[in-house]
Every structure is written in structure tokens, then in C-alpha cells.
């Protein structure tokens, strides 16, 4: 993984596999304090305390065809190798909450990368799931909520329609540029 955005995509894919109806992704930066925080919260099936204790071990996975699962360990590593921290909470039947904190100025912090592209991919490729994606830097905040967008579009126009996709792509990029201004 070369971008934090790809880690976000990977963790959000776990939420989708867990059958989440709503996935909330937040990227929040506090430039004065030199910290940023990435979080993914879902209402999927969650996991047992036993699984939770082992989940950052790369030799733990829900897959049955092999014994390696790298997604969470890579995300954890991205934070801990950059002066940050990693946290995960989960409850069976309730959902999972994963967040990582970073020192923005740390020399080993990966760039955020194409977060807009990841947000676009999540909302347009997963029609069965709702997303609430928040980007915040100091006082500037942008929210992309698929529930709001679906309400505007009505029932017969999907988010994956090329015209809607093209609109959302620009909408997301413009807002992200306004909020983060390429600083992450």
C-alpha cells in the first residue's frame, strides 16, 4: 500500500463483507496540532472478543481458503510506523469501529493519496450500502452522504449512472481540494 486512501478502501471493503448497511468514513486533520485521524465505522456483523484480540495478527483471517489476512495489519502498520496509533472496537451484532491517528509531519507518514477516487468508488460501486464520508480540516468540513444523494436522485437513477458518476467525481474532487488543499 502506498497511499492511506487505499488502506481506507481496504478497511471499508471489510465493512461491506460484514454486511454493513451504513459505513461511515472520516478523515480529519488538525494542522495546528500536526495530527490527522482516519476512521471507519460500520453496522455490520462485528466480531467476537476472541477474534478482536487476534485481528491485528496477519495470520488471522475470516477466509477459509488460506490463513493470511493483511488488511488490518497493514493499516495498523501505516499508523504505528508514522508516530501514530491504531485502535479497533467491535461488538458482535452491532458493528466495528476502526481508527488510526497519524503525525502529519512524520517523515514516514504515507500520503493520503487519491481519497476522492476511493470515495467515488465506494459510493458508486456498492449500491446496496449507504456511505457517509466526512472530510474535515480545522474548520472546513465536507460531507458526502449517499442517503441524501439517493433522495435527490429518486429511485430510478442509480449512483452508478455515468452522468451521476461524472458529477460526483468533480463534486468530490472540488470539495476535497477546498478542504485539504493537497496538504495531506
Amino acid at each position, binding site marked *: 500500500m502506498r497511499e492511506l486512501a487505499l488502506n481506507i478502501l481496504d478497511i471499508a471493503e471489510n465493512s461491506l463483507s460484514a454486511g454493513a448497511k451504513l459505513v461511515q468514513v472520516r478523515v480529519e486533520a488538525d494542522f495546528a496540532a500536526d495530527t490527522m485521524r482516519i476512521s471507519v465505522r460500520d453496522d455490520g456483523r462485528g466480531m467476537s472478543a476472541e477474534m478482536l484480540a487476534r485481528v491485528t495478527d496477519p495470520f488471522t483471517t475470516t477466509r477459509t481458503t488460506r490463513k493470511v489476512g493483511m488488511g488490518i495489519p497493514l493499516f495498523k502498520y501505516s499508523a504505528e510506523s508514522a508516530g501514530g496509533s491504531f485502535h479497533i472496537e467491535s461488538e458482535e451484532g452491532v458493528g466495528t469501529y476502526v481508527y488510526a491517528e497519524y503525525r502529519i509531519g512524520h517523515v514516514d507518514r504515507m500520503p493520503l493519496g487519491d481519497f476522492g477516487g476511493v470515495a467515488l468508488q465506494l459510493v458508486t460501486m456498492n449500491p446496496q450500502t449507504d456511505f457517509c464520508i466526512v472530510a474535515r480540516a480545522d474548520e472546513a468540513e465536507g460531507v458526502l452522504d449517499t442517503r441524501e*444523494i439517493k433522495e*435527490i436522485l429518486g429511485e430510478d437513477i442509480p449512483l452508478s449512472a455515468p452522468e451521476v458518476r461524472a458529477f460526483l467525481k468533480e463534486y468530490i474532487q472540488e470539495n476535497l481540494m477546498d478542504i485539504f488543499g493537497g496538504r495531506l
Partner: protein
Amino acid sequence: MKSLEELRALRDKMKSQTDNRSVAGKDETVIKVGMATCGIAAGARPVLDALLDEADKRQLHNVSISQTGCIGLCRLEPIVEVFKDGQKYTYILMTPEKARKVIVDHVVNGNVCSEYLIGENS
């Protein structure tokens, strides 16, 4: 800056057009891109973007592009599966450039890009 008001206008415009996208019949081509940790780390996202962009540019209405989990051959990611004419074609070690070629040569013109197929490379 764009606002959601513009999305409302876009919706009204789309509603007034007759939609011929929904008439895709049994000649539909299905394309799947592996999007698990292995695929993402190997660069599946730019590949998916290239496929969507090329299909959109060529106004391909009978092509459905979606993502899937780990296909099981992590070292050959990014993997793109094309289901066409009752056959499955597995393209491996894809790049955005190769993905565009698959759309043009295989999906549009029916010539399989055999040099990218798994049987030729593994």
C-alpha cells in the same frame, strides 16, 4: 464549486431522456475486478478506473463493471475477469493501459487479448 443543487438539475435532465441503458440483453458483458487487500496493493483501483472510463467514453451500454473480493491468485493481481459469450476470460497482472486494450480489442471488437490471459502467463 459544484453543489448538490446541480445534481437535482442533472436528475431532471436524465429523467426527460429516454434511457436505452436498461435494454441490455443477454449479450451483456460482465467485467469483475478483484478488490481485496492483494488487488488493491497491486494497483486494482487504477485498473478499475480505466475500465469504467473507457466503457463510458465508448458509451458501452451492455457492459457491467463491478468489483469482487480476492480471486485466489494474489501474486497475479490485479486480475480482471471478463464474462462474454458464455465464457470466462481471466486477465492477470493488469495495468490501466492493458485494461483499456481489453475493452477495445475484446469487449468491443471480440478479439481476445490472449497475451494477457492467465493460460499464457502462469
